[in-house]
């Protein structure tokens, strides 16, 4: 069973959001990394890049496939996880910790309320894998 931490917000594209003041830390879920398989490459934006909600901000590649990743909330990229360039496998081993991807200064912090709760996301993935 995939790990779904209680304190995060989730998108239907399998990203998670951790709110830290006006900033959002974004990564992909345990369910997503498990479906992808071994992550071998992560393409991230640059600090300062602006994204609308649900816009593609980069891609995650396994041996077999490329998947786009989307910003669940609108904002400006404050920092990116540089360590994923050399250690993309952290996305598999620690998706909610060391595998974080970008930190975004939210343009509308209220947006997180429209995201899924842990329980809702768990139901969503159950329905999707059936």
């Amino acid at each position, binding site marked *: 069973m995939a790990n779904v931490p209680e304190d995060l917000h989730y998108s239907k594209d399998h990203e998670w959001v951790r709110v830290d003041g006006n900033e959002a830390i974004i990564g992909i879920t345990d369910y997503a990394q498990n479906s992808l*398989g*071994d992550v*071998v*490459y992560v*393409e991230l934006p640059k600090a300062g890049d602006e994204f609308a909600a649900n816009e593609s901000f980069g*891609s995650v*590649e*396994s*041996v*077999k496939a*490329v998947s786009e990743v989307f910003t669940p909330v609108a904002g400006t990229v404050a920092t990116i996880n540089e360590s994923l*360039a050399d250690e993309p496998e952290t996305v598999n081993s620690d998706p909610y910790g060391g595998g974080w991807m970008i930190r975004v200064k939210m343009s509308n912090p209220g947006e997180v309320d429209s995201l899924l709760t842990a329980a809702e996301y768990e139901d969503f993935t159950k329905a999707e894998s059936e």
Partner: protein
Amino acid sequence: MVDFGGWDMPVQYPAGTIEEHLRTRTHAGLFDVSHMGEIDVRGADAIAFVNRITSNDTTKLVDGQAQYSALTTPEGTVIDDLVVYRLAADHLLLVVNASTTDKDWEWIKSNHSGESVELNNVSADYCQMALQGPDAKTILQTLTDVPLSEIKYYHFTRGNIDGVAGIISRTGYTGEDGFEVYAPPDRAEQLWNKILDAGKTDTPTGVLPCGLAARNTLRLEAGMALYGNELDESTTLLEANLGWICKLDKGDFIGREALARQKEEGVKRKLAGFEVVERGIARDHQDVVVAGQRVGTVTSGSPAPFLKKNIGFAYLPIEFASVGQEIQIDVRGKLVGAQVVKAPFYKRAK
């Protein structure tokens, strides 16, 4: 699971593609390749018939020998690549790709004219297990009395594996030493489980079950063509660097004239191996760019887990296909630098 030529096939097992790939290179991997098609050719003219519809020289085979070859069109392009097994002077078995079995079968029947042969599509009569890697021989030897060391590369013998009568062939699609076992399909599960047990699958150096993704990365690293990617009815054998299976002097065969002409004139494009030198992974169907011009298409592009590089094949105009040529791959709109390199990318130490 994915649909592959009508077969439900696992992309990977729980260990994951990278581990499956590495274990096959360092110890052993087991692949259920029962999806492969088998066409049985029997009769006095079996060799003459197959020699006329394939590009390699069937007459060179002896009993117990296998040969990589291709079914060619009159234009010298490829209906399918295959392995021809000589069971007897009047009995050959053609092992073809799953996705092309029906097409091949129709093609073979429609090109049969007058030769004394009986043709049968016996794809459903065989399962096929490929045990590949440096430990393959030791593992398989625990399940058979057949002295495996005596089977030379691209040779085979009939024999029992765990009491199941089958064909044991020293062939494979990974670039490693290994064996492919053909047996009745109702014994597939038994063979699969017995080989995994014999290979101590639950230990860190044991045999791992491998899925389609590892099969693809292993064959790509070893520089082997995949039908539908490097080979199809628009590419000739010479363009695909398969001149070594075009025996233009063996007598007439379908496509001989076109291939002989192309050989004389020289190919205008050819399949080139490349290595990505900047950050990024080339993928199938992406464009290849030289000096701002789109000059070719990636046929297979992937990370190479053992070499830890990103590699691929592409058809390139001959002037851009030499080793050392700098090219760019259009990776979803971003041009990523790459370089033509010598294939195979990986060659095992003998």
